[in-house]
């Protein structure tokens, strides 16, 4: 059995990475990711794991170093936030196209400008099309679990894609929470050694990243998209394996009090906990409100989401990023397109909330559900903004 601990979530994330016996980590410090980097360096320098810890000169170099090490067959990890993720952007599609199972912790923080270090999801929404598996953790326990699971998902021979875990900056990274830290034996049992399909080795030369002419580029893109779409099966299988060993169940879309719900609140990340308190409050007041939490953002779990909101009349979406000039927020865009072909489609109301660390309280979720219910049609609005 794992050990019950009280620990800062960022530190716990680094401990989870150590349990996965990584070979190399390349990181560049950025708030609120720094504690992951620092604690990983402690772990490596204490000799707790046999790995290299690379202090690089920028995130661009961090991701490039990860690509290099992963291409040589190593198990690698990095973590970043906001501007760092955006600076890595150039390399992210390379990692997925080369089918390199790099794992990254993204400590979600608002993207500049103006400069802001607090939590929202604008960073991840900028890179959502990069071909990475993208998970959203709700609490410290999920950060530990998903970090370990991500290696297994990414390295699975039927997947071989990079994976990232979204960890809400400060709201998760800097919280001290009670969590269960798996033991090394359990993780070893769960996570086999990485067996790369092709890797750089002088004895068996391969070329990676070669030039694609127009006659083959589209096929390559389709293959990458299929690989990511097909990874959902493996992701679900990995979660089943996890539940068998650790007893904690994961699903691409989690629901809370959705049976008979007329309004569904949709969240991603740490806000799920606050929203579930709001749902409890509303249920006490006889409001038929439930909660849908998206845990798997890429590949998007289409059937699972539809099943989760089946019969529900109103969907109130919490979007924590702005798609400037777009029809609505990025999460709502995804969900609206899901229901386009449905005969009886629910009303989809999109709320932009909690940007750059703006507090979102239980009352805000209540007001969101009430407003959504009253709307006659699909709308899009910023909630709680001073005019």
């Amino acid at each position, binding site marked *: 059995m794992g050990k019950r601990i009280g620990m800062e979530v960022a530190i716990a994330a680094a401990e989870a990475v150590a349990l996965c016996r990584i070979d190399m980590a390349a*990181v*560049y*410090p*950025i*708030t609120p990711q*720094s*504690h992951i*980097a*620092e604690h990983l*360096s*402690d772990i490596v*320098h*204490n000799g707790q794991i046999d790995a290299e*810890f690379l*202090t690089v*000169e*920028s*995130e661009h170099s961090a991701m490039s170093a990860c690509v290099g090490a992963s291409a040589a067959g190593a198990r690698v990890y990095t973590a970043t936030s906001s*501007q760092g993720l955006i*600076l890595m952007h150039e390399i992210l599609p390379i990692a997925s196209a080369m089918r390199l199972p790099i794992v990254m912790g993204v400590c979600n923080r608002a993207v*500049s*400008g103006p*400069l802001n270090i607090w939590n929202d999801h604008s960073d991840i929404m900028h890179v959502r099309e990069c071909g990475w598996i993208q998970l959203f953790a709700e609490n410290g326990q999920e950060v530990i679990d998903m970090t370990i699971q991500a290696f297994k998902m990414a390295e699975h021979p039927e997947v071989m894609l990079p994976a990232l875990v979204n960890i809400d900056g400060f709201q998760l990274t800097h919280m001290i929470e009670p969590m269960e830290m798996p033991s090394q034996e359990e993780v070893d049992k769960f996570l086999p050694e990485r067996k790369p399909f092709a890797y750089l080795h002088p004895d068996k030369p391969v070329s990676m990243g070669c030039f694609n002419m127009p006659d083959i580029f589209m096929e390559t893109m389709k293959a990458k998209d299929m690989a990511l779409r097909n990874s959902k099966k493996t992701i679900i299988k990995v979660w089943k394996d996890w539940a068998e060993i650790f007893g904690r169940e994961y699903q691409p879309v989690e629901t809370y009090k959705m049976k008979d719900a007329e309004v569904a609140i949709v969240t991603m990340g740490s806000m799920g906990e606050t929203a579930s308190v709001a749902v409890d409050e509303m249920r006490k007041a006889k409001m038929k409100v439930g909660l849908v939490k998206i845990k798997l953002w890429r590949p998007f779990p289409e059937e699972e989401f539809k099943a989760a909101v089946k019969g529900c009349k109103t969907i109130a979406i919490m979007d924590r990023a702005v798609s400037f000039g777009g029809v609505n927020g990025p999460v709502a865009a995804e969900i609206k397109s899901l229901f386009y072909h449905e005969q009886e489609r629910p009303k989809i109301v999109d709320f932009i909330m909690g940007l750059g660390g703006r507090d979102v309280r239980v009352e805000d979720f209540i007001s969101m559900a009430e407003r959504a219910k009253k709307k006659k049609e699909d709308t899009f609005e910023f909630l709680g903004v001073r005019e």
Partner: protein
Amino acid sequence: MRGKKRELPGHPMDRLLRVDRIPHIWCSGCGIGTIFGGVLAAIQKLDIDLNKLAMVSGIGCTGRMAGYIKVDSFHTTHGRAIPFATGLKLARPDIKVIVASGDGDLFAIGGNHLIHAARRNIDMTVICVNNLNYGMTGGQQAPSTPLGFKTTTTPEGSPEEPFNFCYLAAACGAVYVARWTALHIRLLTNSIAEALQKKGFTFIEILCPCPSVFGRRNKMGNALETLKLYHDRSVIKNEIDPKEAGIDLFGEIVVGKFVDRERPTFIDYYRSIVCHETPEDNVIRIAR
């Protein structure tokens, strides 16, 4: 604490400060405030028209200078102060541009920009505050961290040799290169004033105590003890080859003005070769 504003006696630098942004965020004992004071004193001394002055900074502790100075300023993204400043200078060649940033910002994530701006000899003054680590994010290893010194990402000591910033800037073509410490405030102020009056890429590195982060981890005591170390160890060697001007915290910390030379700036060449405004011979003559 946003009550009624108390009437406080003015500061001699108020004309140059965004007083509404004070108190600043720098830790007690940090040398950036002193260095910032030096920058302001140099501006004051030269009596520069504040409408003809701009400050650009990157991200980090020193990056905050751009937010506190009351001239047109841009607090850019991490590492990009120099390219922002390059654009600014080319659009408005008539104004003086100061880039104020830290060692991590200018030489790690933004290292590429610095070497090219020096090569092109873009007319700007770069104030590089070197606190030997990434202070703002919690004291991680930077390209300035001395070999063997501890940081939060090198708990056993840094296994890398740091840059000699002055040597690098000089090799890339800077026309003015100097190094001081936060203790040499008068010499620093004069040096900044000198650099501001000079045409071309001018570079000043200033060693700065970081007692809360770097100092604490390396048992260097409080800020006063670091300043004492600067006092005891620094040796002024003007006009020495910057290659020989090392920073050895256990031996000699070489400070002084190492380079002061003339080279046509990017704008000189551009006006001559691209715009044909001045005869090419003219510029080439200066280059020789």
